[in-house]
Structure formats: structure tokens, C-alpha cells
């Protein structure tokens, strides 16, 4: 499915991501990515989706090297993403932006997405006038359109309450299972990640610490140290 090989992203002398190798081989799974601030989570997402060119390394999807491919090509081939800061079309209603993207990528089940993300009440409202939580759902709904095979969601629960976060992850799990989508989720809310994700990868200071089942990652010494520090 997705394979990242020796990925390095450097900003001058700062290595935001250092020699990361990671594989998500199964379809229909929710793969969480966690790490403290500055761990390189968003940089990893940017490098995979093409928003940022890696300094070295490769990104492969189903065996094809897509490292040099432009963003729009990746999207049309089934790799979508949502953004840490909500990225919608100001001035367009919710319906108009869903329709716009659906017209480009094709989406026979747009109503299912609308209902799954509870967007029907706000369909005819300008998207930049609706509540922040609703905007987050629009952002993610846009990433769902076109039946992507791989979705990368950058802190989808940012700014949401605990209740909203749980509801969001439940939506995601339902859609991932139902549509057979592989979703990689970067999240600060580690409780939600360990509760809902099938696999978890932990990063720290640009390096991959561990990847595996939630319970394994949760009890890994390196992860505990990265989040809590060493005992005095």
C-alpha cells in the first residue's frame, strides 16, 4: 500500500525528518502517527503527500515511486489529505465545494459522505460561516471524495472537544471499514489514537521510534521516555 523509504526532510541544518522508513501494507486500516511537538509528524505527512519535497528518500504507493509526482497527480490517483489548519474554500457554500471536488474526482456516494459527517444542516451555508467543528468535518469530507485508497489526515481533531473527537474518530472508523480506505492520522490526542487506530507509529525529533499495535507502542520505553522524559 504505502511505503516510505529512508525519508529525510531537512530545513537548512535542521533535520525535521531523519531517515524514516515506514510501511502501511494493509487496506482498510486506521494508522495513527504520534509524537511530541517537533517530532516531524506533519513533515512526514507533507513529504508523503507532496506538499514538501524530501531531501532524500522515496515514497512508494503500491510499489510505484511517486516521490517526484505533483500533488494533484497524487490526489487523482487516490491519495488525499486534510490539513492541520482547516483548508476549505471561503465564499463557497458547503454544498458547492463538495460538488466542485466531486465533479473533478467523481463521487457517486456524495450523500453518504454528507450524512456520515453530519453536514446536511449546513449544506447551503457559506463554509467560512459555520462552526469550527463543522469546518473540520468539511475539510475531512473533501478528503473522502473520489474514493481515495489512502487518506492522510493531519490532526483532524485539533480544536475539538473530547466528545467531538470521539464522534469524529467513530465516523472515520466507519468510513475506513466501509470503504476499504487506508487512513493515516496524525494526532496529538494519543488516547483517541490508541483507542481507535489499528496500528500506531511513534516519532520523536524526526526519527521513527517504533511502529506496531497500539498496546505495543503504548508500552514501549522509548515512547514513554519521549512523552514523559526519563525518571529523575
Amino acid at each position, binding site marked *: 500500500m504505502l511505503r516510505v523509504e529512508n525519508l529525510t526532510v531537512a530545513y537548512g541544518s535542521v533535520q525535521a525528518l531523519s531517515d524514516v522508513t515506514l510501511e502501511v501494507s494493509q487496506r482498510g486500516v486506521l494508522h495513527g502517527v504520534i509524537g511530541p511537538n517537533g517530532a516531524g509528524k506533519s513533515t512526514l505527512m507533507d513529504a508523503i503527500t507532496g506538499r514538501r519535497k524530501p531531501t532524500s528518500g522515496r515514497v512508494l504507493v503500491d510499489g510505484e515511486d511517486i516521490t517526484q509526482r505533483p500533488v494533484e497527480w497524487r490526489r487523482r490517483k487516490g491519495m488525499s489529505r486534510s490539513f492541520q489548519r482547516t483548508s476549505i474554500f471561503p*465564499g463557497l457554500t458547503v454544498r458547492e465545494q463538495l460538488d466542485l471536488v466531486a465533479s473533478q474526482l467523481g463521487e457517486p456516494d456524495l450523500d453518504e459522505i454528507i450524512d456520515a459527517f453530519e453536514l446536511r444542516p449546513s449544506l447551503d451555508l457559506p463554509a467560512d460561516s459555520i462552526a469550527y467543528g463543522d469546518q473540520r468535518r468539511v475539510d475531512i469530507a473533501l478528503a473522502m471524495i473520489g474514493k481515495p485508497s489512502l487518506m492522510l489526515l493531519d490532526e483532524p481533531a485539533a480544536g475539538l472537544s473530547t466528545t467531538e473527537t470521539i464522534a469524529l474518530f467513530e465516523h472515520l472508523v466507519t468510513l475506513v471499514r466501509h470503504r476499504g480506505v487506508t487512513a493515516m492520522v496524525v494526532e496529538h490526542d494519543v488516547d483517541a489514537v490508541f483507542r481507535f487506530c489499528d496500528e500506531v507509529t511513534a516519532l520523536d525529533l524526526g526519527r521513527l521510534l517504533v511502529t506496531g499495535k497500539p498496546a505495543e507502542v503504548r508500552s514501549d520505553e522509548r515512547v514513554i521516555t519521549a512523552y514523559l522524559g526519563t525518571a529523575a
Partner: protein
Amino acid sequence: MSATPATLGATAAPAPAGSPRRALWQRPILLAGLLAAAAGFFVPGLIDTPYTLSLLINGVVLGIAAVGIGFLMHQCGFVMFGVAAFIGLPAYLVGIGSAQLGLGLTSAVVFALVGSTAFAALVGALVVRARPLPFAMLTLALAQMLKQVSMLQVMRPITGGDDGLTMSFDGTFLGLTQSALGKAPSFWPLAWAALCLVILIAWVAAHSRFGQVLRATQANEERMRFSGFDTYWPRLAAFTLSSFLVSVSGVLIALNSAYASPELLDFATGGHALTAMIVGGGATALGPLLGAMLYTWGQSAFGATGYLELLTGIAVVVMISAFPKGAMGFVLQIGHRLTGRKGP
């Protein structure tokens, strides 16, 4: 798909979801526009002085250029400082086609439009990659380069150098001889028809999916790319279309005056069109035309006082301050209040 462009600033209000397509007589604005377009051809019969008709023609020609750059600004957020390039270049090409290439008048007009548009596509391939401010300056540099080229000694046999290019046409254009094209009453129908066509093209493009893609790209280009849209080619197409529309004004200038000069390529020429577009408002297809008419009338009235630049500057500042959405924006606001409709 129910997408409508209205909330991104197009002039048409969205049809209610699920409503049937309305007949022409049920669309008052469209009907009024068609009637006004038809009535425009009879204007010479209503104008008693040649000077007034010439002023109207100047306003129409300026309006065509303003509609062209207004389209680009509203759809893409790009301002073409170098709009004079696509006024002066086609004007020169009409003359060059006639004199150097021995083309008949109609062929020379086609040559000018195709040549200017092709040049726009070529240049646009580079400049539309730039951000808005560098884009504006690049187009300005382009116009200045063309002006300098037109004045080179080596170009004198082709462009006339500093003296400009006096033209002599062979044949007719749409049945009009050079003599007829130089007279206001016989030139007016051509100018008016060209204006109606330019406005129609701009309106159709703005209200199409093409226009929607452009405006969505302007709103959030990164999201568009992450939604699978290529944003470069539509922007290039918009620049090329805009330049083509502006080129129509350059061709009309050449046909009417049978003369092209380096002054046509100067920033000041483009500045008139830019000012007209801003005064009238670029959010609608008719705004730039209204701005051009106001601007042309103002230039004539202020010129008579001897304080042209001063009064023009004051008037422009007052207009932009009082009507931030342009004169047409203000008119539409009044209209929406009177009809109780929600404005853009």
C-alpha cells in the same frame, strides 16, 4: 451536481435547488441586457453631435479593454499592469499585416487578433506562474519592452519608430472601407457589436465551470491542487482569454484611427483601462464598461477645465473611497435593496 458560481461573486443569483430552468422572459436582467444590446445600435440616431458620438466610441473601446482586465482580476485575482501590451500590439499588427504582409483588411484583423493572442499564450506560460504582484510587474515590463522595440531604429521600416505607423488598408472589414471606419456614425455599430460580443464572452466564461475553477483557485489554490485540480492551465487560459478580449480594443483603435503609436504601448494607456475597471467595479461583466463611460466622460469634462490630471485624481479617489465595490457594485446594492434580494 448543483454547483453555482454566485457565491464567488458572479453576477447571477443562484437558482433555488431543484428549480426548473427559467425561460428568457422570466429572466428580467438577461432580457434587459439583450434589449439594451439591440437598442445600442440605434444610438447614432439619438446623438446630435459628432463629438459626443466619438466620446461614446472612446468609452466603448476603453470599456472593452477594461472588461478584459476585469475578467482576469475577478476570476484570478491578477492585475495586468501591462495591459497596454495587448492594446498596442494588435494595433501595430493590423498595420503590419496590411503594409508588410499585404493582407486584405479582414485578414489583417484576424492576423492581429491571432498574433496578439498567441503572444499572450507564450508570455502567459511564464508569467502566470508568478504570484500576483510579480505578475503585475512582469506584464508591465513586457509592455515597456514592446514599446522600446517599436521605437528602435532598426524597427522603423516596420513600426514607423517614434513617429508611429500610419496605415492604409486594402479591402473592407465587414463591408466597411477605411473611410467608413474612420467616421463615427459608421464605426459605431462595429464598436458596439464588438463590445456586446466581448461582454458575452466574459460573462459566459465567468458563469461556466471554468470560471468556478478559477475563482476557487483564487480562494484556495492549495486545496484545489489537493482536490486533483491542475491550477496552472486554467490560469494560463484565463490570461490568454483576457488578453484576447483586450486585443479587440487595440484592433478597433487601429481600424478607427488607421494609426498606431508607441504611446499605445505606454503604461498610461493601460492605466486608463485599469482605472476604468476599478472605478466601475471588476466583479461584474458590466462594471468595467460603466467605469469606462464615466472615466471617458470625466476626461473630457476635466480636460476642458485645464486641470485634467488634478481633477481626474480627485475623482478617482472619491469614487473608490465612496464606492469600494465600484460604481456597478453600488448600483447593484441599490437594486438588491429595492427588490429585497440578498446581494453578493
